[in-house]
């Protein structure tokens, strides 16, 4: 049974120059206990998806269509108060820029207690004990609870944020580039931590990153995004073994593989398209090494190509398999 189902989500940002279609017709689903990875270059709409699920888009964000079903309820039709009760309690978000995600003027422990008390009737004492427990769980010294964020190191802050995200035992955890600002060793530790916790609590996880190798470690399936669209979706192993979309192929070759043999890093030539005026047809065609005439004219359909493997590309057809 899928916990989250996103159907044909379309959303944009209104700017003085015009509409930016940040997410354009994205569909996917996440099953209970599953970990889904979303990969793409910055600006491709991954974070917008995360924010859309949380219903935390900035004021100029507009929903154009689609559904987000969480436990069979459409989040997009919920009123603000119902939605508030979902946030942090049933769906938690760990987002980018962990360094500034904590309010510098409040004690870290208090910020977590605040989250707990926003959803549960709980005394201060009990909440404190809960936070202590969470601190141990994420590998922080509970003695640091009374300190301010600036007294924490980057890794400690990220752990605290994870503790915060888990404070109300959410069903779905969205981690949006949770380790961007950290150095590699800490990054690794944090990822291990998240994985451990996911298994321990049987969390459903959406992991968003521009680093496909990180995703490979964490997630059972992967969605590849390009310019507001999901271009390929497949279980991790299938994707790594036979990437079908030219973009996925490019992406895979541009990253050093942790597991596989060492390959030369070959970045995809060209620039990320401007979403104000996206290219016609397949949005990837100006950069695509295999682009054909049709690619510039017609938008490829997002379709299932194998069991659990979806793709949107003119160049890949069933016969190619």
């Amino acid at each position, binding site marked *: 049974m899928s916990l989250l189902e996103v159907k044909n989500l379309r959303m944009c940002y209104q700017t003085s120059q015009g509409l930016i279609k940040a997410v354009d017709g994205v569909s996917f689903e996440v099953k209970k206990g599953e970990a889904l990875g979303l990969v793409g270059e910055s600006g491709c709409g991954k974070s917008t998806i995360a924010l859309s699920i949380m219903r935390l888009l900035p004021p100029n964000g507009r929903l154009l269509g689609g559904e987000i079903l969480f436990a069979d309820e459409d989040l997009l039709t919920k009123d603000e108060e119902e939605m508030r009760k979902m*946030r*942090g*309690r049933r769906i938690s978000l760990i987002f*980018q820029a962990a360094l*500034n995600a904590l309010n510098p*003027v409040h004690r870290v422990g208090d910020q977590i207690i*605040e989250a707990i008390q926003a959803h549960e009737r709980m005394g201060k004492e009990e909440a404190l004990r809960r936070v202590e427990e969470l601190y141990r769980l994420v590998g922080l010294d509970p003695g640091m609870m009374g300190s301010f964020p600036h007294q924490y190191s980057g890794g400690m802050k990220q752990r605290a944020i994870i503790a915060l995200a888990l404070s109300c035992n959410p069903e779905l955890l969205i981690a949006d580039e949770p380790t961007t600002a950290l150095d590699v060793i800490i990054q690794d530790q944090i990822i291990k931590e998240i994985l451990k916790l996911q298994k321990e609590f049987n969390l459903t996880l959406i992991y968003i990153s521009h680093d496909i190798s990180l995703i490979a470690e964490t997630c059972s399936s992967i969605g590849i995004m390009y310019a507001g669209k999901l271009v390929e979706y497949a279980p991790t192993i299938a994707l790594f073994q036979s990437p079908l979309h030219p973009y996925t192929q490019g992406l895979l070759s541009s990253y050093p593989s942790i597991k596989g043999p060492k390959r030369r890093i070959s970045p995809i030539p060209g620039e990320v398209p401007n979403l104000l005026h996206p290219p016609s047809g397949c949005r990837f065609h100006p950069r695509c090494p295999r682009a054909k005439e049709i690619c510039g004219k017609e938008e490829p359909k997002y379709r299932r190509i194998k069991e659990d493997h979806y793709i949107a590309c003119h160049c890949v057809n069933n016969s190619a398999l």
Partner: protein
Amino acid sequence: MNLGRFILNRLGQIVITLFIITTFLFLLFRMMPGDPTSMILDPKMPPEAKELIRKEFGLDKPLMVQYLYYLKNTLTGNFGKSFYYPETVLEIVKRKLPPTILLFTTAVILSYLIGLPLGKTIAWRRGSRLEMGATVFGLFFYTVFIPWFGLIAIWVFSYRLGWFPIGGMLTPEVWAADVGLFPKIWDVLYHLILPLSVLTLLFFAGSMLLMRNSMLETLREDYILTARAKGLPERVIKNRHAARNAMLPVVTALTLSLAFSLNGGVLTETIFSWPGLGKALVEAVLNHDYPLAQAAFLLLAILVLFANLLADILYAYLDPRIKY
């Protein structure tokens, strides 16, 4: 660095600043023509008498000697003798300082009490009619010509409606009648209302717009998103997270707005005959009473400098990241 050392350090800076200001004032006034005898044009006053007066003020001595005397006077805090009044400047200033502090600090506090919540609200409800209205209203008073506005306020509220006194700080009849403490306090408050309201109206826009801008910037911070993602109620996000953090730059900017509000204070005191330093300064300038003008200005500057120090200490208290 601990707080004590920080304050000491800042005090040092204040002293240097004051030294520069005093020297500047000395040069400014001594280089200019005119002296205490300049306001005396009385056929009964023979020329020798004028010479005597110059001597009395030490103006026959070389500039450097005068400067040292002046420094000594300023350091010992008696600022020398007034050219105009037969008192030392210290005595005059001592009388003028409390009314200014009373009017000025209450106005600043009141305008912040009004401006901060309003700024918070209009930033939160950006683009609303309330924001537009409050901004236009506030800005108009922020840039209004103070003496004119003051006169109109007197015209309407004192003259036409008769709600408030016309000016001054107390009713002589009340104070001359030995009526006890409470009526006297009430009497001063009664005189305070109109100038205070005018000043508050003039200032609140400053703090309101500062708060609004600061709040708008704060609202973009990641921790606000975190707070939202935690599922906190809007009210909590607005007050505990956004407003609390937005206060920090406002407190810093307060230091600048204090100097600004003193500008208004000077004109307001003059219009409302409020017997404070600002009015004293204007009168001293018109009377060519340089020692008094210098001292009044110096005291206004000291007032601002210490208010700044206070703001810095407040800042340290509000922002846990800052440890002196």
